[in-house]
């Protein structure tokens, strides 16, 4: 089938098998190396992208469902991610970085959802980020960076 969607603001029109995964379409066909394949079954979060503003596992998103959507990858976040990146840098929250683009997507979705002035509770942060596995950092610096950013 043919699908059209926007990728980081650019219109895309592609011939796909409806059950291809968004991971292969984005990484292999569209050159979005930020969409990492690690578990391929939605259990690690390394391929997290924004679909119509909400986080999604690209490995659990079939091509047919991409039709008509607005897709944003970490490569396309631009200035939306600046403040978060600064905080993560200051706290040393990232190590090997393989989980980082997916994590950044989840953080952008979370912080853009929370209305201004709302303080992000620790438990809510943990609930929202539990699907982004990081094997390096132990999460301590990440939690510190983000809770401080939202308060």
């Amino acid at each position, binding site marked *: 089938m043919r699908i059209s969607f926007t990728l980081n603001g650019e219109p895309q029109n592609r011939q796909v098998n409806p059950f291809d995964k968004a991971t292969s379409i984005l990484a292999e066909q569209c050159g979005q190396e930020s969409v990492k394949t690690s578990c*391929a079954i939605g259990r690690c979060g390394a391929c997290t992208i924004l679909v119509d503003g909400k986080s999604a596992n690209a490995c659990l998103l079939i091509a047919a469902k991409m039709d008509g959507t607005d897709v944003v990858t970490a490569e396309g976040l631009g200035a939306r991610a600046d403040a978060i*990146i600064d905080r993560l840098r200051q706290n040393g929250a990232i190590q090997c*970085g393989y989980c980082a683009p997916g994590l950044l997507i989840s953080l952008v979705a979370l912080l853009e959802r929370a209305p201004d002035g709302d303080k992000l509770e620790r438990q809510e942060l943990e609930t929202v980020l539990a699907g982004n596995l990081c094997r390096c950092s132990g999460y301590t610096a990440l939690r510190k960076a983000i809770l401080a950013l939202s308060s």
Partner: protein
Amino acid sequence: MNAVTGLEEKLRGTFRYLAEGQPEGTLHGALLTSPLAHATIRRLDVSAARSLNGVHAVVTAADVPSDFLMGTAILDRPPLARAKVRFQGEPIAAVAAETKAIADAALALIAFELEPLPIVSAPRDALDEGAAKLHDSGNLCSDFIYSRGDARADFEDCAHVIDHTLTTPRQVPAAMELEGGICIPSPTGIELRAATHSPFYTRSLIASMLGLPDKEVRVIGSPIGGSYGGKEEIHIQPVLALLAWTARRPVRLVLERSQSMAFATTRHPFEIALKIGCDRAGRLLALTADVLVDNGAYASFGPEVLDTGMECIQSAYAFKSVSLRGRLAYTNNGVGGAFRGFGALQTLTAIELAVDILARKASIDPLAFRRINLAGANDPGPLGQAIIPQPELSKVADALSALPVWRDETPSQRYLSGTGYALVRKGEGFAGGGPNGASGVLALTLDGQVTFQSSLVEMGQGLESTVRNILLASFDLGDADICCATGSSDAGADSGPTSASRGTQIALRLIRAGKMPFLEKLYVGAAEILQVPMDALRLGPGGFYQRMAPQNKPDLSLSDLAASAGEIVTRIDIPGIETTQAGVKVHTLFTACAARAGVRIDRWTGQVVCTGLDLLPACGPPISPLAFHGQMTGAGAQALGFCLTEHQPYEEGTVMARNFDSYFIPTIADVPDINVHPVTWLAPDDPVGIRGAGEIGLNAAAPAIANAVASALDAAPTHLPVRPEWVLGVLARQGRTP
């Protein structure tokens, strides 16, 4: 200062890992792996696969020199199964094809017949007379024997004696980046881009397999998307190189997670039976240890892991006598290998549990008990070897006692809580025999940067930022004047493996050793160009300044110096800090660390939650504080997984957890805030001045968590990870069921 280089690129996804950004026309590599854990290969016919359109290479053991085997102490592993398969998931053949679909079709065309052999699944059974042999040499891969004093007699003098047996999990490194890479052939050689801790070692291994001179193999080993020891092992590099060399086309081969869960080397499960005793005053008199290790199918780093575990089994304590035995048994349960903590994690957890049990039995506070028994500052090492003195041990004990008291959990009907401690030490670098020495290069490159070139690798631990900090502290230069070149065999100098917590130590000592000779060359060059005496010059940000004429701009920029004088290069070689001892492998440089952990136990479900963790590493002053903290907190989370959630079970040689829906690494909700309290004091005459941060946090955190469980339950765990089933069983036996 950043904890890691490339942080923003990593977050934005523009950072390139080694299996990304393949050249146009790269072939898709794929593996045929064994469905059986132990079998004879009766037939293997790849002719149909080879003739499929779009297939450019199909390789099997027949394409590898018949005497080519891999390993460290013991060479026993072929890159592709030869005559026999010894674990489920072992590669039998590999293909390179134009697309994934063609590669999959080619795999399906490979005809093979496996004749099952009896499966060796328990290490104890493996060592039985009648057990099926994995290798001709038998199933005892290696063993360890050591004794000091007369343990049997000393037990007679003990006022308190306890024994405890601990079984530890098969923990999977489970880096987010899968094992894989890209190999690009040229007419005369190959470029191999695949994660390794040891670019030069990998280079000579691959060169010898392909029959190429070393110089025709270029290995780029980092950046790495997480390793923890898992990619210290040779993984798919030989198969990848073989495919590309055969196909004469670039090939990309990356494992799928389900393949990785079977293929990747794991932490060895240990069964550790300890007996320890102390006198009335709480002084440790005797220790006997019998350790049995499930090595899996190939030796890999198993012998070194066993040796390190046995060397550390006394933790940081002075036992009057010890009697130690360790055995490493081949089984068909995957392959055990290097994993952060390296055998010491298992034995330290066991001994620290035993120490707490004994302290409780002797009615002595566990911290006081540790202090009574701490090895002396100038004592020989645990196996009687000469070591760098460890006066910091008592400082670590002081710091542990001085931690602010926990805010106690509110007692409730439902939850129990407990606090546990540990104080441990582990050798840094490799045992005597090495490789402990290293080479590196300080160079003023043509673009005017002072560059430290080494074959050390960056895997997220912050090596590059640490090197940059060392360069800035060593030379009065600006951030733009320095560069760190890592991760490849291009360095021209083999720095040895980036493992065993040695990376920072090696970088620091290399730069320290090279600094004066390198500076001298720079000054000589600058003086000649500026036609002034050397002592009229000062190196500063951007280049050389004439002392008499202070100004904002250098009188000779580094790039002008390089342009006139050419590249200025100082090759540096440092010897290893090591001693050797007859009969046993020993370390010389030790790192100490203490930890405190809190747990909460749910009496209804048996579930254990880690509620707090303090780590007190005695590594000297951190060179890159953020990276240092990151090493500790990351190690804490892996220790938590080791104690509470992670295990790869095998049933009759079958891998049970094939992905992250059945193998559970800790999420952000599982890991508490981990507090790091560096103990920065080391002896003023310490020959290094720092210790590596890579492993020691893990080695202290795990026993502290295990001891916290023991303190909450009044019963020491016998198996890790702690299973809710076991917790409920203990509570039932104690009559404490809700």
